[in-house]
């Protein structure tokens, strides 16, 4: 039965994508609703098949015939978990798109977006379900290309084209590393099946690990390979950002977890490498997010932060298993996986509500928003739930996974090596800093976007979005609350299945206590206090009526943190002034400038680009020399070398 669910889900997505391409010029929104209904149904089917594997515990193995090719698939518990994530997020994004898609632009664009969305969801599901390395690669490429088309939906804009090219290069680079790793595995282990990787010599195993970490790290957006994320997310339509940030980078996490579980004789430094990658992504991600005023780019940097948190969990898993502490290691792995699910939920929620906000205000700049709480109350409430969740505040789901990671960190005393323990406590402090900065960043994001007075005409005129858009977000919001409040009960069940015990606090009990205390306080306060309420102006230091220019801005809000971390931002403030008199009292003219050094672009990306440009210009010169002689000479040398090589090889 679950197999049938899965197969019909694949079929439905293929039909939806095909029909949307055939009827590319269709104008009726009803037909588009039918395409989306197919996608929704397919996501429900994927969810059903994933749940039956997760609850039943039996892995599925089957194959699909795709245009005459036999594609072997297998769905074990790990794959089912990720398929479940894809199904959940896909479902709510598709529901959200029911009304969002009508705002995309021309008819062709709308239908094309739906077609590519179906292919995108399909390819992600198939990557996760692949049983063979080759299938994995093919679907991985399909995922990259369909998402590239989706990023390029607004191709008329220069900015979007630039983002698309950047994304394309990075994603192909990731595939190159994967192909290299898979070729090595095939060469030495002699199999293309994902379930068995044995017989790798130690050096080759390390090489495979590094190239897999690079390949998946680029796709996941781990720092320093993160640059494509903040370009691609603001450029693409919001449902697509939600899918890419909520799910696609999780497919890369799936790859990391899958292959790390498979690779034999792991080294200590593998775990340390992942931990460093994770800690730096988490901290730098949130620090960059703080200075961002583009709402979607801010969320993109938070994706980098959360990928970092997930990688910290995976790194801890590897470290603790190396030090043979399997129980703690499993707790770390579960924390990483649970955070993967949680991040998928709350980040898609945030991207969708950001999409509603951007659509309503026609700007991504949060300095031009404000006061949306009154005009868009539902979107505001949903964004607030996402913000609480991503800030890791109890009792929502984001808190639970971070709590599990804290527990793993707190138990690092069991590690036999004192040096390692100290390193872990240092990583713990950076992790704590990350989570506190995330809270600060979302106070800024929510406060500036939704509270106080509108800062522009557009924000004042904003309208609440349609019911389908609200419903799509509401599903995710309810899950964020449910997975947090019932985390204790859920992990009791999971623990029974996995044979470990989670020492989690019962958040249902705590929430019930909080509600009870709240009710008592409310009644008591009503009983004893003065109930008069007066509405009045905010005090504006004597100015008669307050306006939005007196409000605190996003730049002002994050300025103290920016100043404290100025060495990380590498900002240079130039401030030149000249005066009419010698005592510097009467101001003549001045010049102030804030220079932002793009650290990774300056020191990592551009040198590579320069190297390639140098090589290609060299080859260009060689090729385009007018004289015949160098050509003849090079051909002669090449043939000579080939003959020599063959002569040696045959003997």
């Amino acid at each position: 039965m679950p197999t049938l669910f899965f197969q019909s889900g694949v079929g439905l997505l293929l039909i939806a994508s095909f029909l949307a391409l055939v009827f590319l010029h269709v104008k009726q929104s009803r037909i588009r609703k039918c395409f989306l209904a197919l996608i929704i149904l397919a996501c429900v089917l994927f969810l059903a098949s994933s749940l039956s594997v997760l609850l039943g515990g039996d892995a599925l193995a089957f194959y699909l015939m795709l245009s005459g090719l036999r594609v072997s698939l297998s769905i074990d518990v790990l794959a089912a978990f990720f398929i479940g994530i894809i199904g959940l997020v896909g479902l709510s994004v598709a529901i959200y798109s029911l009304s969002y898609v009508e705002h995309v632009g021309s008819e062709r664009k709308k239908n094309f977006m739906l077609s590519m969305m179906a292919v995108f969801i399909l390819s992600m599901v198939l990557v996760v379900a692949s049983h063979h390395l080759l299938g994995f690669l093919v679907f991985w490429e399909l995922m990259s290309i369909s998402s590239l088309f989706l990023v390029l939906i607004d191709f008329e804009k220069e900015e979007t084209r630039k983002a698309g090219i950047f994304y394309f290069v990075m994603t192909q680079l990731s595939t190159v590393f994967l192909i290299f790793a898979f070729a090595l595995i095939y060469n030495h282990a002699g199999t293309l099946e994902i379930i068995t990787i044995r017989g790798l010599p130690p050096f080759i195993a390390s090489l495979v690990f590094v190239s897999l970490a690079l390949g998946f790290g680029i796709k996941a957006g781990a720092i320093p390979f993160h640059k494509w994320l903040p370009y691609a997310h603001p450029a693409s339509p919001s449902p697509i950002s939600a899918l890419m940030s909520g799910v696609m980078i999780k497919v890369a996490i799936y790859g990391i977890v899958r292959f790390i579980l498979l690779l034999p004789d792991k080294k200590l430094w593998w775990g340390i490498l992942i931990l460093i990658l994770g800690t730096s992504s988490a901290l730098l991600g949130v620090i960059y997010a703080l200075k961002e005023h583009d709402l979607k780019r801010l969320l993109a940097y938070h994706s980098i932060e959360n990928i970092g948190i997930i990688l910290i969990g995976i790194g801890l898993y590897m470290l603790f298993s190396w030090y043979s502490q399997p129980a703690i290691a499993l707790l770390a792995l579960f924390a990483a996986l649970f955070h993967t699910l949680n991040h998928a939920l709350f980040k898609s929620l945030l991207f969708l509500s950001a999409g509603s906000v951007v659509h309503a205000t026609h700007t991504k700049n949060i300095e031009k928003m404000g006061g949306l709480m009154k005009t868009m109350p539902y979107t505001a409430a949903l964004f607030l739930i996402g913000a609480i969740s991503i800030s890791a505040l109890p009792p929502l789901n984001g808190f639970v996974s971070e709590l599990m990671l804290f527990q793993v960190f707190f138990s690092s005393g069991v590690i036999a090596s004192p040096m390692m323990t100290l390193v872990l406590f240092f990583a713990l402090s950076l992790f704590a800093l990350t989570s506190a900065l995330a809270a600060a960043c979302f106070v800024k994001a929510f406060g500036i976007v939704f509270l106080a007075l509108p800062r522009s005409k557009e924000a004042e005129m904003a309208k609440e979005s349609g019911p389908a858009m609200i419903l799509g977000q509401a599903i995710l919001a309810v899950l964020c609350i449910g997975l947090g409040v019932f985390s204790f009960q859920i992990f009791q069940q999971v623990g029974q299945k996995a044979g470990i015990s989670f020492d989690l606090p019962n958040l249902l009990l705590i929430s019930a206590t909080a509600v009870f205390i709240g009710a008592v306080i409310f009644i008591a306060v009503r009983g004893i206090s003065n109930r008069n309420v007066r509405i009045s102006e905010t005090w504006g230091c004597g100015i008669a009526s307050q306006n939005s220019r007196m409000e605190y801005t996003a730049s002002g809000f994050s300025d103290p943190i920016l100043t404290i971390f100025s060495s990380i931002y590498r900002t240079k403030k130039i401030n030149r002034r000249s005066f009419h008199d010698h005592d510097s009292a009467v101001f003549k003219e001045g010049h102030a400038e804030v220079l932002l050094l793009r650290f990774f672009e300056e020191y990592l990306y551009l040198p590579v680009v320069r190297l390639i440009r140098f090589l290609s210009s060299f080859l260009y010169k060689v090729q385009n020399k007018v004289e015949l002689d160098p050509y003849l000479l090079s051909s002669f040398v090449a043939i000579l070398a080939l003959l020599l090589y063959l002569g040696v090889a045959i003997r």
Partner: protein
Amino acid sequence: MSGFIAFAIINVVVVMALAPLYISLVKKMKAFLQGRKGPGLLQAYYSLWKLFKKEVVYSSNSSFIMRVAPYISIISALVAALFVPLLFIPDDYSGFGNIILLLYILAVGKFFMALGGLDAGSAFGGMGSSREMSISSMVEPVVIVLFAAIAFVFRSTNLFEILREASHGLGGYASLWLLLIPLVIVLLTETARIPIDNPETHLELTMVHEAMILEQSGRNLALLEIASAIKQLLLMGIIINLFMPMGFNLQVLFPAGILIAFGAFAIKGAFLAASIGVIESSVAKLRLFRLPNLFALSFFLSVVTIMMEVLL
């Protein structure tokens, strides 16, 4: 469970009764050191009563955030009060006492208070929220590593277990005394006191916490004031029961044991509150951007404690 409910009621009553007293006591001590007479010890209670009896004024710009923030703040403080045993430790405390959860429950209150600061659209509120969140992000790694050090020394993350172990005396945990300084710094930070913040002024340049709640009034302001007082008392309670456990968790019959423990706690709390007054009077407020140095000191001491535990 009934044992825990009795504990919860006693703890909440103690917290509500004593929290405003220590706020007054700190003020009284500061006044004494400045050669003033100062307000009476019951002044904090009178002020709260007065606030409850005043009308609430909301800004016309504000939304429901400003209306719920005081309630969430007081709820988070009171739920946190169930995590910190003050007089005794109940037999059954399952589900409560996780120190990380305690920190994050307090963070919920702070999060909404900071949003409330932005809600009215006043520049003061925004400035207060911004500074409060900056300070709290700076101090967060310090608090976590400090609590990790405590958890590491006692091999437990549950505050009930930690304090039960500590109530037998700190003889075996000499390294713990190093943590007293970071704990006091965290106490001063979380309760917005000098040298981090100045609770007395309403000057734009110096205020942080006060700026954030500037637009709050009437009963809402009273709730916020009680919440901060409770937060102070809880942090004081951790320090007291960790380092001065005399009279804590007596295994004596119900009314007598509780009364003795209450008396002992009240006296120790008065001593600690007076010490806070002395600290506040003897140091100057630090510039906002100098604070990381202060936090680095407490971070360093926590790390030294962990190192001593790991290496010795």
